[in-house]
């Protein structure tokens, strides 16, 4: 695990980030938090937890925060793998560790967490329906036989990191990562994970209506490619 950097994008996660980082530190030695212009004390909390904090002076969106983390890993570390791990405590550290082991053992470029191969606890019905249609959309647009989409737990090796160059700053970056797998011809596999929806993640997490923004961003990207 010494050759792995965990990238944690965070935006106003003060109440939970200390706990999440403590759990990560039990298994990982190298953690970098990308504070996406939080208005609360997230950055200070993360620093006092002893992790490196990269700070966006203005809020850009999770996609931009991840790309900053990726750039850091590529330019300033010799890590072989990076893990993307949300700061809100939806994921389990055990799953991340298992995914890094799979990535190292198989040499695959990118390992994607899949809640549908694993378990999901406390997911609201509306979210389940939305995720199902999002999955159909992702499978169709990327041509990849995914079992889950927009899952924030991933392991990327350096080749995959270099291929990313995320331009979507908001939540559409998850679709962008999937399409990069296709365009950069990355090898990939999925790994079953457990996701826990708590009251905090339900309150703090993405509202379902934001799916409209994702679709719109992706459409604009396609049109924009010709502008």
């Amino acid at each position, binding site marked *: 695990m010494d050759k792995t950097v965990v990238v944690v994008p965070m935006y106003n996660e003060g109440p939970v980030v200390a706990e999440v980082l403590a759990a990560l530190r039990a298994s990982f030695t190298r953690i970098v938090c990308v504070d996406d212009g939080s208005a609360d004390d997230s950055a200070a909390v993360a620093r006092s937890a002893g992790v490196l904090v990269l700070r966006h002076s203005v809020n850009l969106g999770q996609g931009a925060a991840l790309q900053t983390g990726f750039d850091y890993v590529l330019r300033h570390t010799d890590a072989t793998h990076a893990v993307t791990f949300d700061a809100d405590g939806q994921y389990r550290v055990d799953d991340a560790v298992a995914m890094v082991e799979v990535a190292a053992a198989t040499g695959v470029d990118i390992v994607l967490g899949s809640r549908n191969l694993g378990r999901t606890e406390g997911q609201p019905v509306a979210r389940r329906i939305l995720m199902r249609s999002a999955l159909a959309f992702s499978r169709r647009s990327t041509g990849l036989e995914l079992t889950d989409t927009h899952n924030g737990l991933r392991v990327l090796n350096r080749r995959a990191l270099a291929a990313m160059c995320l331009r979507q*700053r908001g939540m559409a970056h998850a679709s962008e990562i999937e399409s990069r797998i296709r365009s950069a011809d990355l090898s990939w596999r999925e790994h079953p994970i457990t996701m826990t929806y708590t009251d905090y993640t339900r309150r703090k997490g993405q509202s379902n209506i934001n799916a409209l923004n994702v679709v719109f961003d992706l459409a604009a990207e396609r049109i924009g490619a010709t502008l």
Partner: protein
Amino acid sequence: MIIRVFLIASIGAASWWLLQGRATGHRLAVTRVGALLVAAAAVVAVLVPSLVTDVANLVGVREGPNLLLYVLIVVFAFTSIVQAARLRDLDSRIARLTRAQALLEVEMGAKAESSVDG
């Protein structure tokens, strides 16, 4: 009839213009000259309002205001798309700038730390 040819041709020209790639000095100059011409036409239309109706009749539109509406719609759509593209460009510049600053801060911090250690 003439108005249809004119409107479709202007939409075509606007699309072609948009597909020309990134803004250059040349494009900017042409846009500015176009804006000056529109301003001049507006002054003329204010001084001689009947001229608008004459021009409208000439291209096959019954009323002058209708012609203004058609032209405005084309100009508005064109301007909106140009502005959206510029905004996206600006967004990505801000993202790159913010990212560079975040990485620089860490580098500076690391340097300061190593100089303290040394």
